[in-house]
């Protein structure tokens, strides 16, 4: 057969693709429990301030990260890390990213299985559900990287539209009185809410890894802000609707408030019932992109310091991720894992890149840059 070389400049992605990818990673499992975690620390509907605050912080950091990677246009994150701050440091950084995204991917696989078991079918074993999900994630990652990015372009609008439709359908259950009284929470509790919701914004750090694919990397800082802004808007909308439908007190006690919101919704004409199953089915698409991109970042990091190719790495990683995802014995252990991942996420998404940025700035200031 002839070799098939001709490509449409295919190794690069545009600005829109970048926004879609970054937002897709952020919108995942976090939002399903977010209204509960925020309701626990704030009163009435004041949580939106927390989300906005956390979102603003995330935007700022994402902007700084984008600036950092724009400096080293079309070079991968780990490549320039090893230039700026010695090779051992880049190994440590790459290792941290690999482990974090590996755990993250495992956690997502487990929680999507938990939810599927709870809402879709209770007799099918958890192991089977996660295995199927995992296999498809592996199939996605095994394809080309631009293919993965294109997948997010396909799915994110779909997810956003589905969410908006569900919110619209629940508008007749919405009671403004449940949002009252406004601004009764003190600053401390709002900050506490922000601290908790920042975890739902983690994921924007993938732009460090995908920026090298950008056709015009100069635009990334602006795009980073849009990428974070999209989930912020979506989260605030979902949060306000959840509180407006359930009130703060009820929301505190629901495991997955966002899914329960879908349960309350009725389609005009009562064509379907129990829409939470349908909503979850659609939401699996969003969770899937998060998981697939996480696994891809793990693969990218590991490719940096092993000689293995992508396929071989996936053969090794897939069983590891599957075993980790099956390790927690119950919900308590799972949420412990999630806490561990969250703190690792803070380290990888915020501390490490900011330190790197500081080093770069410092070198420039002292003329070694």
């Amino acid at each position, binding site marked *: 057969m002839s070799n*098939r070389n*001709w490509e449409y400049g295919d190794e690069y*992605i545009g600005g829109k693709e970048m926004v879609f990818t970054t937002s897709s990673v952020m919108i995942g499992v976090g939002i399903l429990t977010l209204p509960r975690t925020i309701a626990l620390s704030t009163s009435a509907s004041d949580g939106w301030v927390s989300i906005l605050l956390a979102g603003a912080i995330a935007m700022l950091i994402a902007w700084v990260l984008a600036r950092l990677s724009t400096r080293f246009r079309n070079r991968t994150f780990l490549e320039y890390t090893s230039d700026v701050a010695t090779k051992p440091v880049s190994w440590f950084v790459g290792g941290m990213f690999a482990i974090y995204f590996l755990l993250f991917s495992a956690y997502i696989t487990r929680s999507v299985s938990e939810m599927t078991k709870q809402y879709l079918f209770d007799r099918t074993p958890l192991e089977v559900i996660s295995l*199927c999900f995992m296999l498809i994630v592996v199939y996605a990652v095994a394809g080309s990287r631009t*293919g993965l990015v294109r997948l997010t372009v396909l799915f994110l609008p779909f997810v956003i539209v589905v969410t908006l439709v569900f919110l619209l359908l629940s508008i007749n259950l919405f009671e403004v009185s449940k949002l009252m009284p406004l601004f009764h929470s003190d600053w401390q509790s709002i900050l506490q809410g922000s601290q908790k919701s920042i975890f739902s914004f983690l994921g924007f750090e993938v732009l460090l890894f995908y920026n090298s694919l950008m056709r015009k990397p100069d635009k990334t800082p602006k795009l980073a802000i849009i990428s974070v802004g999209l989930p912020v808007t979506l989260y605030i909308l979902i949060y306000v609707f959840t509180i407006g439908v359930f009130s703060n007190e009820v929301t505190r006690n629901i495991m997955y408030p966002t899914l329960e919101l879908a349960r309350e919704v009725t389609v005009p004409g009562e064509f*379907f*019932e129990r829409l939470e*199953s349908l909503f979850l*089915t659609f939401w699996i698409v969003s969770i899937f992109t998060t998981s697939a991109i996480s696994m891809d970042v793990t693969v990218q990091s590991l490719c940096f310091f092993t000689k293995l190719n992508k396929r071989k790495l996936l053969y090794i990683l897939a069983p590891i991720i599957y075993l980790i995802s099956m390790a927690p014995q119950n919900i308590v252990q799972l949420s412990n894992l999630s806490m561990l991942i969250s703190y690792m996420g803070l380290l990888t998404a915020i501390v490490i890149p900011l330190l790197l940025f500081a080093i770069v700035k410092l070198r420039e200031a002292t003329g070694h840059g």
Partner: protein
Amino acid sequence: MVRRQSNLVTQQNVRTGSDDNEKDRRPLSRHLQQNIDYVHYRLHSPGDLITKEIELGSTGLSLVLMSLDGMIDKTLVQQYVMKPIIAYASKLDTEAVEPERLVKQLKDEVLPSEEILSVYRMNDVLYAILSGNTCLFLNGTDHALIIGTKGSPKRSIEEPQTESTIRGPKDGFTEDIRTNSALIRKRIKDPNLRMDSYLIGRVSKREVMVAYMQDIVNPKLVEEVKKRLNSIEIDDVEGSGYIEQWIADSFLSPFPQILNTERPDRFASSLLQGKVGLIVDGTPFQLIMPISISDAFKSPEDYYQHWLVSSLIRALRYISIFIATFLPGFYISLAEYHHGMIPSNIAFSIASAREGVPFPVFIEAMLMEATLEILREAGVRLPKPIGQTIGIVGGLVIGEAAVSAGLVSPVMVIVVAVTAIASFTLPSYSFGIVTRILRFFIMMLAAVLGLFGVILGFLIICIHLVNLKSFGLPYMAPISPLLPSDWKDLVLRAPVTFIRKRPEMLQTENKKRMDD
């Protein structure tokens, strides 16, 4: 593969290796009888080989015409070859005539044919005779004249069978490559229309034309198409399906990566968009590449109707493909796993309809779908009038009987029927088949994992599609990668005055369709 320069000869022999082929390449002999004997030896003196000897007056010279009966246009040979030669021969005087001058005279003055050529090698002679031309040998010359007298049987132009339209033109491609290229030339009268001819197939030497607009198309695309054509090493490419399968990007994908069409209007408009077409001799199905999934939903009809009408119909097609692929799977998962999602009154009627059905929903669905596929296949293979009878007997009688016998529920019959009809809304037959394959795949996933399985199936299809390419063009373009300017002709078919540019995804040289 050989680039074909003239209508009458191939420049070199395609087949190599055997002794006879080596002999074929040798020059012609000056002795008339030797040449004639050689042709008879190579073709094994078939019954349809015509050898006509004409004495040239009293010169003592004679010439021989050779051709294959049935492949030539007989009236043409009689009127414009035999008649002038006989008239010319009777006028020749007894003085010795130089044979070389005689041939030159014959070629330039006597024979009123626009296709006439001198050849010096045996293989050219053989190819010319085999493709329906007449060969003229003369005593004492080392070359022969080939006269274009092709007239093999061909079908007249008829309405396309597979892609019918209401307002579109009614002419369709035929099996004859000259008719087909003329149908394109008739539509695009531009010197930039290129039709590069190649001979493909070691034995059959089938002609294939690569058609494109020189000033519009991306030159890399043409290069790639020619490169892939060049890789074909096979005795014969029977029909365009062979070529399609040989040069397509992925042979594992069920999705067609090259479009086949019977419609010259669609072919011509694709060329003008910046695509490359292949016209293959001997088939009415010509190929267009590259394509993306959006081409599955486009019919030439869309451009002849009002834009509102076509946009709505296109939207309908997009919905239909989802119904055709996912509906049975969705029904299986609802009925098997998620009873709670069906409103109670509907759930009751489904349950009462299913009362007494001895199979699980999945088996019931498979039975019905399999029956439908059998009916469809039988209907296609049978002669037209009987095919329709099969449709009625199969569809109505078996369906009705199966329901009253309690083997399947009426709801399942509705689901299967709607699905089948939805899959027929796609304008291209080869895309319709894909939904049939995917439907069974989704049904199996639904039977095992319910709605979760359906969504996983959806994910698998999407992953496959974003990684698929047609001649380098991403298959999901312009949806992903996102090319907003191409959305004017995606679901919505914008008014013609609005579509100012050629599709961006094709990366054409000349981007504008209209001047500002």
